[in-house]
Structures are given as C-alpha cells and as structure tokens.
C-alpha cells in the first residue's frame, strides 16, 4: 500500500463522515427550526405546555386587543369558535376565556387544536397557563365541549404591537391516534 492510497483512505473517511454528518444535520434542522421559530416568531407558534402565572404588576396604562379566530379542517363536521371574538386586555392581567366546540358527527372523535399567533413576534409574549391545545380533545358524537383558555400577555410585549390575533385550527386526529385504517383511496382499494 502506497502512501498515496493511505492518504486517500483517510481523506475519504473524513469526507464520508462529513456526508453522514450533514445528513444528520438535515434532521437536526427539525429541532433547530423550532428554536428558530421561538426566537424569531415564525408562524406564531406558542409554547406547547402550560406556563406559570408570575405577574405581580398589571400595566393598566396599556391595552392590547386580542382577536380570536377559529378554523376547522375542511370536511370535519364540528362547530368550533371563540365565545368572544375580541378582548381588550392589560399586559400582566390573567384572562380567562373559552372556545366552544360541538361534535356534530354521530361518533366520538379526537381533535387537536393548532395555535398560531399573528404577528408572529407576539407569540413569545403570549403566555397560556391553561389551553385546550395542550392536549388532544376527545368529544363524543353529537356533544358540545367547552375548551377553556387562560392566558396573560407579557408586559415585555414590544411597544409597537397593539393587536394580537390568536388562531386555532382544529384537526381531526381520530384515525391517526387510534391507528384505524385510513379511509383514503389507497387503503380502501376503490377507485371512485
């Protein structure tokens, strides 16, 4: 074995390791992206777990307009909406509100709400101490459900944000959760 073959081997090893590393990095981008979203406020994602209410001072001099929006996955036979569309709140104040949902289907379904805040930068300052989006929400057929939401707005909220829109998109995850057979065309093997 010549010196050149040996140095070839060494170099190839490094390069292949580099490739594998970059392949791994592609997947590492998934958690890295979440961090990026948190710091930059991409897509207005809020925390997925409850935060503690730790505010002593309520800034009465400032009012933030909070708009609530609801969106249902197409084809999902539910009613879903906020009890109030708009709330005016002071930063630091603990606010309790709720969304109401009704499963109009005849069978029990599991829903998952995905929150999104606009402007995205506001997401960092919108703290939820209780939210129905933290868990999956099973609701029996033909039954209503109350989805409570308790939150406060961080007094650190940048001065140029006056309105925060909180939108929830409700997804039907019954099949995904229960692992039932898909109802899609592939699973059924029928061509309509």
């Amino acid at each position: 074995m010549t010196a050149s073959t040996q140095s070839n081997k060494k170099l190839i090893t490094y390069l292949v390791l580099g490739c594998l590393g970059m392949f791994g990095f592609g997947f590492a981008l998934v958690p890295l992206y979440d961090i990026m979203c948190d710091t930059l406020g991409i897509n207005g994602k809020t925390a997925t777990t409850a935060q503690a209410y730790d505010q002593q001072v309520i800034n009465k001099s400032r009012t933030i307009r909070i708009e609530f929006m609801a969106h249902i996955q197409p084809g999902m036979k539910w009613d879903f909406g906020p009890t109030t569309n708009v709330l005016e709140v002071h930063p630091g104040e603990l606010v309790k509100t709720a969304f109401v949902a009704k499963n109009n289907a005849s069978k029990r379904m599991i829903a998952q709400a995905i929150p999104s805040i606009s402007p995205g930068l506001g997401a960092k300052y919108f703290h939820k101490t209780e939210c129905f989006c933290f868990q999956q929400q099973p609701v029996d057929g033909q039954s209503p459900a109350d989805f409570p939401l308790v939150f406060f707005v961080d007094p650190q909220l940048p001065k140029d944000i006056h309105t925060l829109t909180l939108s929830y998109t409700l997804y039907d995850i019954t099949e995904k959760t229960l692992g039932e057979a898909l109802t899609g065309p592939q699973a059924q093997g029928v061509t309509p």
Partner: protein
Amino acid sequence: MTTANPQTNETVETIHEETVETNHDDHGHHEQPPKGIMRWILTTNHKDIGTLYLWFSLTMFFIGGAMAMVIRAELFEPGLQLVEPHFFNQMTTVHGLIMVFGAVMPAFTGLANWLVPMMIGAPDMALPRMNNWSFWILPFAFLILLSSLFMEGGGPDFGWTFYAPLSTKYSGDSTALFVFAIHIMGISSIMGAINVIVTIFNLRAPGMTWMKMPLFVWTWLVTAFLLIAVMPVLAGAVTMVLTDKFFGTSFFDAAGGGDPVMFQHIFWFFGHPEVYIMILPAFGIVSAIIPAFSRKKLFGYSSMVYAVASIAILSFVVWAHHMFTTGMPKVALLFFMYCTMLIAVPTGVKVFNWVATMWKGSLSFEPPMLFAVAFVVLFTIGGFSGLMLAMTPADFQYHDTYFVVAHFHYVLVTGAIFSIMAAAYYWLPKWTGHMYSMTLAKWHFWCSVISVNVLFFPMHFLGLAGMPRRIPDYNIQFANVNEIVSIGGFAFGLSQLLFLALVIKCCRGGEKAPAKPWDGAEGLEWEIPSPAPYHSFTTPPEVK
C-alpha cells in the same frame, strides 16, 4: 467522443509503465481500452467517464428541452390547447429536475472528470472504480424519474422545489419514485464530489501548489465541498417527504405538530448552495477562456479564488431569500436581504476581473470566446435581476412571477449552459483530436444568443406586469409577449441541434488538431497531444 489514438498511447504507456505502478492504484487500465460496449460499462478511465457524463448530460439537455418546448407550445396563446393543467405541472416539474440534476450538474462533473486530472498533472482520478459507479447509477435515476411520467396518476407535479404539503398529502403515488430518483442522483453527486476532492488533494503534480491551480480546479474544489455539505441535506428532506407521505410521520403536517414552512427552510438550505454548485465551475471555465483569447494573464488570480470561496460561504446564509413571502419577522427579512446583497460584492469582483483581463488584451473571437463573452454579459444581467430580487419589499412584487423565471434562466441558461458550451468549444479539439467547423459553431452561437434573449428577456416584462410562474393559461393581456417568448424558445431549441450536429461531426473526424489549438491557451492540458492519450500524465510533469 474520444477516439484514443493507439500509437501515441502505446509510446506513453511503454515509457512510463513503471511510474504508473507506483503512482496510483492498479485500476487495471494499463491495457488498451477494450472494444465495444463493455469498454464503456466497465471503464475506470477518467476520460471515458467524462465522455459518458457529457453525452448523458447532452441527452438530458434535449429531453428537458423537449419538455420546455411543450411548456412554451402550451403558453403560445391563451387558453388550453395542447396539454391538461395536470400534465403541464408535470412538465414544469420534470423539466426543472432534469435540467438541474440531469443536464447542468452531470455536464460539470463530466468536465471535471476530463479536465481536473489533466490540469493538475495527474494520471487519472484518484478513485476510478467509484468514478465508474457514480456515473452508472445516474441513468437509472433518470429512467426512474422519466418512467414515473407514464404511471397512472402521472409523475411529480409539485414543482422541482416540491413544497410540502403539496408533495406529501396531495401528491400522487409516483412521489415514491421521485424520492428514490433524487436519492440516487444525490449519491452520484456525492461520489463525484469525493472523487474530485481526493484527486485534487492527493494527485497534484509536484510544484502544483494551491495557488498555482487553474481556476477551474479551484472552483470545482469549492463546488465539491458544497456538494458534500448540501446534497445530504436534500436527501434528508426527500426522506422526510417520503415518511410523511407513506409512513405517517408529520414533519411538515401542522395537524401532527409539524410545519410546512420548515420544509422550505430545509429545502433552501440545500437549494441556495445548489445554485452556486451550478455556477462556480462556470466561473472557472470562463476564467480559463477569457485570458486565452485575450492573450493576457487573468487580471487577479488570487482575488478570483477568494471571491469563489466567499461566494460559497455566503451561500449558506442567504437561503431564506427564496421565502420572503412565507411571513418572517422584519429582523430576519433584513438579515437575509443584507446577506443576499453582499453576494453582489464577490460576484462583482469576478465580472470586473474578466473585463480587466480583456482590457488592452489582443482579443480574438473564436467560438469559445464568443460564448464566454456572452456569458459575462448575460450572467451579469441575471445578476442585476438577482440584486433587484434581493430587495425584500420589491421581492413581494417579483416573487413567483415570470420575473423570477427570467432571472434564473439568465443565470442558468446563459450562465451555466453557455459556459458549458464555451467549455465544449474550447476543449473539443483536445478531446477528439479534431478541429470542428468554425462556421457551424459561429452559426450556433449567433442563433443561440439571439434566440435566448428573445426567449428570456421579455419574461421580465411578463413578471412585472403580473404573470405568475407555473401557470398553464393566462390573461389575454400577456398574449403578445408570450407569443414572442415561445417563438424565441422554439428557435433556441432548434439552434441546439446545430450543436449536436457539430459535436457528432467533430467526433467522427475533421482537420487534425494540434496539441495546443489556441495560441493564447495556458495550462498543463495543452502540453499533451490531441486527442489526449488514454492516460494523461503517467510521469508527473514539472510545474514551474
């Protein structure tokens, strides 16, 4: 393309048999090339593989081009005439994939195979068997991709950028084939890149120091590192698309806690360096040709090297300029805007260098020079529209319109493809041992350069007037301009047949080419006879 001359070969072989042994692995290629098809299937010779790559790329260029003709024919007038919107989307998608992964990238790999060993005074590529593999898996990748077009439900129709969830939840079953094809292309590119790096690191002739390497070698070295850095990321992205579609993961599905925008971040993290993968070797080619026909040294060699390196580094921090409209906070918008604008500095340095090299030279305009000069002018126009696109507020108006289509075709067709044409005209005599018809080449140049501008320049206006990209039908106000664009497109497509005829003619025979057909050319590749012997430098040459 090569018709290795047995006489010349033999002499070189017998003289240097000893040196070959000690100089590199025994590749089993000391004998004459075997005859027939097996020569090409089993070859480990860098010139044979380079030839295979170049022919493959030319084939793909015509297949991808045929798809562009379908697109332009449908867009010739408003209304749906020839194809259904669904098929139209498949055409735009596969046209993009084939041109990027099938035409431009393999052409550059082919050029690297042919030229890098000759330019650095090496006998062959460092890893010849891997070289064989990296080429021969490529045709299968494209067979798979093309065959998916004939599947029930059609081939990929989500654009070459395959944004989720269009490519996951809403795509056909052929997506699996698409993913598989991309994987193979990626593996092929990575193997090619490893080979180039190892060759450049370990097989340089004595005295060939880093800062003496020809710019083509430098640009390819940087490109190879870019490939190794980003092709695996693309592989990761397509893998996630595959598992999202078929195995129930939710990387890009909001319902399962994923995010469709994340796909774009991952894709463009690959995609932007990919753009430079397709242009850096072009810089190398033009930096070889312009000095040769100006009969004057390249103005600033080292600044060119640094410019290439800085473009490569910057390419990793600008990806989000493809996604200004996805909704980003202003800090991010500003950051990506500034970084993107910054790329104009090293690019400017390159253009100024080329112009300064021509200044007070002794210019002549043989076909390689014609294409190189057209490259500089038209690539710069593409650079200008790129600079305009970098302006975030204005990008909200340009994004996803024909303005963008015009921009990237200026940098890829009159940029990358023109540089490949220039390279072919420059080195064809070396490859084949024959001179080609200068008249035909000049016809090819003038037809191409006129029609390509008729094809792409009016697209700027279409975009500014409000025509989105990737649409099969449009409002009647766009009709006249689309008509002109289509005529330019057909003319450009037909012009390329001249190139095909010229290359075939040149391979078959013609006036015998001297070792150095261009009086101003510099570099080790001109010191060996034309056609280049089967093994380039069996004894390493001395580099002053």
